[in-house]
């Protein structure tokens, strides 16, 4: 084998393997990949690496939340009680459903059913938009309660809960100021999450357009698969945000 020089390889194995797999060359196959299998795996792996960066991106926020939650626990408890569990739980269910339809969409693409794929993509989008709608309702409520950090942020509700019909114990004035830290992190985290959702929905429309043209009906599923990974990752972020922001230390009810 030593005298096999670099430039004179006969490619026997490759042809053998290719014949074995009976790949039909797809138009989406890029020239620098030797096989579609290699291209597909490279795509998946690349997408996962991108998701790693997303983990670390949200990781910084999660760490900030962890730290300040421990520092200012009473403020975090009462301000998290200001969030609506029914809305949050509904949103969780909606987002999980959206992810479910996305997963079905991947399956539909894999079994090359164009109609089903389109249907599932539409459903994914609809549920995604529903999630954003409910989020907007929640944001609006915070706006009305003056819970958006900044100049008009109002702590009186936390200092004097009885006046607002709340059963909670009043916070000391200095601790009440710290509720602003909670709401900042709340808006930063859910806002960053919603931003990812918006990007995802834009991409969904693009994918629907491509699916409609039949691009994913012949076994080329990488874009759907990789977008699915992204969409599920956004789900996972919410799966952690929901208990952290809404649920922990919910009592007293």
């Amino acid at each position: 084998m030593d005298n096999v020089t670099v430039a004179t390889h006969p490619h026997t194995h490759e042809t053998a393997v290719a014949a074995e797999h009976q790949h039909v060359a797809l138009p989406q196959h890029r020239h620098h990949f030797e096989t579609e299998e290699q291209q597909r795996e490279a795509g998946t792996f690349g997408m996962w690496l991108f998701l790693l960066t997303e983990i670390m991106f949200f990781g910084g926020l999660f760490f900030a939340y962890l730290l300040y939650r421990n520092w200012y626990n009473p403020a975090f408890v009462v301000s998290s009680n200001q969030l609506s569990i029914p809305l949050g739980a509904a949103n969780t269910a909606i987002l999980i459903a959206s992810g479910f339809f996305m997963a079905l969409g991947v399956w539909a693409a894999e079994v090359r059913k164009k109609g089903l794929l389109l249907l599932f993509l539409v459903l994914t989008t609809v549920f995604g938009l529903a999630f954003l709608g409910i989020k907007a309702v929640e944001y609006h409520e915070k706006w009305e309660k003056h819970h958006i950090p900044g100049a008009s942020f109002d702590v009186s509700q936390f200092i004097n809960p009885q006046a607002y019909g709340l059963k909670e114990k009043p916070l000391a004035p200095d601790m009440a100021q710290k509720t602003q830290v909670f709401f900042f992190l709340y808006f930063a985290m859910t806002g960053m999450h919603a931003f990812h959702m918006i990007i995802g929905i834009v991409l969904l429309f693009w994918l629907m357009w491509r699916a409609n043209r039949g691009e994913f009906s012949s076994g080329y599923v990488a874009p759907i698969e990789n977008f699915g990974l992204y969409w599920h990752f956004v789900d996972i972020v919410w799966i952690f945000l929901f208990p952290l922001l809404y649920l922990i230390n919910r009592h007293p009810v």
Partner: protein
Amino acid sequence: MSEYHDPSNVVNPEHADHHIVTPVTYSIVFATLLVMTGVTVGAAYIDLGLMNPVIALAIASFKAVIVILFFMHVKYQSKLVKLTVISGFFTFLVLTTMTLTDYISRAWGLW
């Protein structure tokens, strides 16, 4: 046999065959996720003290794991992808624990 040309990475340990997950599996996972969401909301209304955040995070982690394994197909992926996923969470853990060494031990001494 290192000279063996393996363009599809078939003999490569980093390779895994493309596996199509069925809608049945997806549905089971979906149902589990919904049930777990219900459980975590319910658990939030019971005062368990320190266990409340632990339970909430445990359920969230469980949900995340099954999303990763099934919706994101990691169960059927190569070792490489599994390792990648783990390394991401590991690095997050490094960020958290190493930073916490500072915050936790700040209270220990005067200096």
